[in-house]
């Protein structure tokens, strides 16, 4: 102690402390940041056990005690962690009420609970894993390619601007304006509800990243033309025309008509 106390005011102490603190924070972050997806993909034994408990409490009444499926709900054997992460993480599951399809909602479970459930389901049979941070990194993706892929593969249901569209019998392709990259990736991987599966053979990881980059552009880009009217196209334009635009013109006509008297 005497050794340290004596050198307390040495000029190199400040630098040494700073480097030490940075090393702790940096290494700590790296450890946490890289470990978490791996955890979700593989899952520790305790996590799997916690997931099983959550499953039995919240899911088994419909999906069955062994996740084998019942008359009310499909089997979850082999759907993979990605499907659980999407369905539970977007609040679609647990289902509030039977309907044409499960609507997105406020998630019922915390992120840890979702990870635990995903880890448990992943142990039942092999299935698509939750995408890694690397797979979700769309920073270098080709937005123009993403746009083309989006228009070919996604726009016929989700609409060219990602505003969603109607399917048959009350089903629908949801609006993508609030979707996170992870959920978009998982949806392509697992094909929830009416959506087809886009495996890596159909859309490579780079393609998926490009699509995510394009959807992010749609979500964030400013509208060069002014008010967007919901980007629904001619229907909302027509509604605006019939109400605001024509209302203003008629008001002007009435005003000029009254002035003459």
């Amino acid at each position, binding site marked *: 102690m005497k050794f340290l106390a004596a050198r307390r005011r040495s000029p190199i102490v400040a630098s040494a402390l700073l480097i030490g603190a940075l090393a702790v924070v940096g290494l700590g972050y790296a450890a946490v940041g890289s470990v978490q997806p791996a955890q979700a993909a593989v899952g520790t034994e305790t996590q799997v056990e916690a997931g099983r408990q959550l499953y039995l409490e919240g899911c088994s009444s419909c999906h069955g005690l062994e996740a084998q499926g019942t008359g009310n709900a499909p089997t979850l054997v082999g759907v993979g962690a990605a499907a659980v992460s999407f369905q539970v993480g977007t609040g679609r599951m647990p289902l509030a009420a039977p309907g*044409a399809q499960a609507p997105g909602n406020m998630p019922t479970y915390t992120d840890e609970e979702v990870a635990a459930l995903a880890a448990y389901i992943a142990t039942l049979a092999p299935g698509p894993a939750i995408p890694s941070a690397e797979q979700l990194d769309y920073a270098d993706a080709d*937005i*123009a390619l993403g*746009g*083309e892929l989006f*228009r*070919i593969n996604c*726009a*016929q*249901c*989700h*609409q*060219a*601007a990602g*505003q*969603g*569209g*109607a*399917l*048959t*019998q*009350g089903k*629908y*392709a949801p609006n993508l304006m609030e979707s996170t990259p992870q959920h978009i990736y998982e949806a392509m991987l697992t094909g929830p509800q009416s959506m087809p599966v886009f495996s890596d053979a159909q859309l490579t990881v780079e393609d998926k990243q490009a699509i995510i980059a*394009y959807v992010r*552009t*749609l979500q964030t*880009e400013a*509208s*060069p*033309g*002014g*008010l*967007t*009217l919901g*980007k*629904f*196209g*001619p*229907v*909302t*334009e*027509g509604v*605006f*025309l*019939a109400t*605001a*635009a*024509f209302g*203003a*013109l*008629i008001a*002007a*006509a009435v005003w*000029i*008509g*009254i*002035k*003459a*008297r």
Partner: protein
Amino acid sequence: MTTSSPIEQAGGATATYVDKRLGSNKFLSRNLAKVFPDHWSFMLGEIALYSFIVVLLTGVFLTLFFKPSMLEVVYDGSYVPLQGVKMSEAYASSLDISFDVRGGLLLRQMHHWGALIFVAAMAVHMFRVFFTGAFRKPREFNWLIGVGLTVLALGAGFSGYSLPDDLLSGTGLQIARGIMQATPVIGTWMAFLLFGGEFPGTSFIPMLYSVHILLIPGLILALVTVHLMLVWVQKHTQFPGPGRTNDNVVGYPLMPVYMAKAGGFFFVVFGIIALIGGLVTINPIWVFGPFTPDQVSAGSQPDWYIGFLDGALRIMPNWETVIFGWTISWNIMIPAMIMPGILFTAIALYPFIESWVTGDKREHNLLDRPRNAPTRTGIGVMSIVFYCLLWVGGANDIIAVAFDLSINAITWFLRVAIFVLPPIAFVVTKRACLGLQRRDREKLLHGFESGRVLRLPHGEFIEVHQPLSPKDLAVITSKTDIVPLPAPERTDADGVRNKLYRIQALRHRLSTFFYGDNVPKPSAAEIEAGQHHAAHDAAIEAPLHDYEDADQIHTFHGGVLHHPGMEETNAQQIADRSHD
């Protein structure tokens, strides 16, 4: 004549200078004083004219930068999400107009909004002309020109919608080609001829460009000129009012009143279109992307004026007949060719049908109040309901998403509603009109209910009825009572068979349908009798002469106002009562 101000002197000198060369003074003095009647609804056609001018001006600007070419290019403009994408030159130049031409997006949006307003103003103008009977003799030809202009406007709009070659444009053209192909026998050949081969080809958009910027605007300009000349020559119709007859025009002169009003209104319309064009996105082609036949977006709709056709296509059941290997596509022919064919033919011929049915061959310069032609008003509302239901059909997927409905449920609702709701709308409208006619009759007989309740000395409560103002009186009495055509005889007095019996019987039935329920205007004798009757009743029930102030209330017997000539006004009555 002395001219005082230098401005007048300069004006006079200029007019003389021009007149000596063109002889224009006589023409101007005759026409600048022309009188037009005044009503806000007479300006709906002006909205159409002015928005057309805005569309022409902005359209000229767009032609400077648009390239109607299907040549494939790689986009290298400033919109990042499309950089490096292969597209037609038409689409690339539309993107350049939107992002790289100064003011281009503003003018493109003004052009598109102006076009939507143009067609909408024509439609609403047509409603005004229809519901007020302004299409009657001598203005049937102008109605026909108006219908022609409407069809041309639809063509102008659709060809413009198809030009930028974005995903929506191409989807629209694909449907148009499908409709062409559904024509029996010649459909396939017609489509090949126009598209120069398989869809989409490279020849249609350049052709459409000439149609859009040259042919259709030229025809519209020519027809608008004739349309306005006819209004000028035949004079504008007017609503009934004091001093307004079938043979005069009450209003203000063109110079200076309508010059100022119409000129001002032009700038108002221009301003509104510019404001909307600057503030509200229309047709964001960069979002839809370039057209390729293997792509389509959910929620692909045409602009509003084609929406009814799209809706008809969407709700039509999938009926096809195969005859000797030839497919007859009823699923496309009925909604996209037969329905609009019947609709526009019926609209065009309506003035002639109505005058044949009613036998009304008189000239009409005084407008009808819609209630006084209940069957016509009912037919109009019925058609609007029919059209609006088709609109709903055209927007069925957007409505399904927005209101959480099943698209199948909407479609089935419409398949039933398209036959059920329009007749209900007809009956409800006709009954409402007849109710209003009855109300008018009551007003003529008893004056209007003032809402003022009086208590008579013997305890009875009455509501004071007041005489109509001269304006109301003129408006209500403008109604002309038309009697349905009489039922024809099978044989005449000499027993000769009436060869025209069947057609005359049909006319009799239709004419009864038109005018049979009419509530006749009370005659002068009836008005008199109604008042005497009420006075008599009141006198029996309330021997008012027993009261010393009976003279104060003598006008309010029996719940009705009756006094000779009905000229006492509300104010006078109040003044009378406050004397004591």
